[in-house]
């Protein structure tokens, strides 16, 4: 199915439960290479949530996946509009109350949309980007490490990996081959989900996905900042970093369990 946002037809897939439902969820994907890696997990999550009786709309933002446009032609404002458009679409198609589930930057954008649309039924945040500057640093570091490994596998010296990875046009940064223009980078740098503290009053899940069973401090802080927030730690591999089949079952189960309790 397609729906319109900002004059662009966005590609979406609606997962409909076998029984009529009064609940729906919009899935907000991560971006750049992380979207590619997490695709299978997002599809598996959509199917599992639909099986649990909740309709799910997953979609591609402008410039991403099967939606038209080039990644570097858009920004976070446009992508937040896309989420609003997806919420409208899901409400139209299902006549249900609609919540948001997002992963990484998708989770952050979902949280920001929920600040402006208090009617969002619930908010599930998988490893949200809480600190935008840290997110950019991590992406740049990944590029440096990849360049180092590529040179190593090619039998070259690795000392120039940083220089090789960091040669984008002035003002832009490169996220593993995705050009992030200056305006988008500045918007990312300004991300801080803890300040000001969130005002969304609906149920909010902050899912911390890592090798540890303990919840990382910023994730706990974010959950605590929500009026009805809860933090849950899930021990699983970073599904947004690995291409291939990864066991996302612990992530999906924890989410479905939480959704069932709402």
């Amino acid at each position, binding site marked *: 199915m397609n729906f319109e946002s900002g004059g662009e037809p966005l590609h979406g897939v609606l997962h409909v439960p076998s029984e009529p439902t009064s609940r729906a969820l919009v899935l907000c994907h991560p971006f750049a290479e992380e979207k590619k890696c997490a695709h299978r997990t997002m599809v598996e999550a959509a199917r599992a949530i639909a099986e649990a009786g909740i309709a799910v709309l997953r979609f591609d933002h402008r410039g991403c996946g099967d939606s038209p446009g080039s990644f570097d032609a858009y920004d976070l404002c446009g992508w937040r509009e896309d989420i609003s458009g997806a919420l409208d679409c899901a409400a139209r198609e299902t006549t249900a109350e609609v919540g948001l589930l997002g992963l990484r930057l998708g989770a952050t954008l979902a949280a920001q949309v929920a600040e402006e649309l208090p009617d969002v039924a619930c908010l599930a945040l998988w490893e949200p980007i809480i600190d935008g500057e840290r997110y950019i640093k991590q992406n740049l570091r990944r590029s*440096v490490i*990849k360049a*180092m490994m590529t040179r190593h596998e090619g039998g070259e010296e690795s000392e120039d*990996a*940083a220089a090789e990875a960091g040669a984008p046009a002035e003002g832009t940064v490169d996220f593993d081959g995705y050009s992030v223009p200056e305006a988008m980078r500045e918007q990312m740098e300004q991300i801080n989900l803890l300040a000001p503290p969130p005002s969304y009053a609906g149920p909010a899940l902050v899912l911390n996905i890592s*090798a*540890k069973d303990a919840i990382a401090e910023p994730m706990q802080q974010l959950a605590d900042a929500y009026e009805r927030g809860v933090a849950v730690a899930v021990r699983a591999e*970073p599904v947004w970093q*690995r291409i291939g089949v990864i066991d996302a079952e612990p992530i999906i189960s924890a989410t479905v369990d939480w959704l069932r309790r709402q």
Partner: protein
Amino acid sequence: MSDQQLKQQIKEMIVERLFLDADPNAIADDENLMENYEIDSVNLFEIVVGLEEQFEISFEDEDFSVDLFATIDSLAEYVERKRS
């Protein structure tokens, strides 16, 4: 913290963060991590984040070289240098 304690903590961190099916005590200080544990760029990123978080150090871009990540010995030496 002694040199051996540092190395043990690094081994445990690597096994945990990379979901390795390995006993940290069985990792030799001088064995080649990249070859023996199929360390790829994603794993290296996890190791970097793990070292930064656990030992409160910060990698600079110019620090990155394959030799640094070759063994537990080289990682421990780097951590000690950054902390000194």
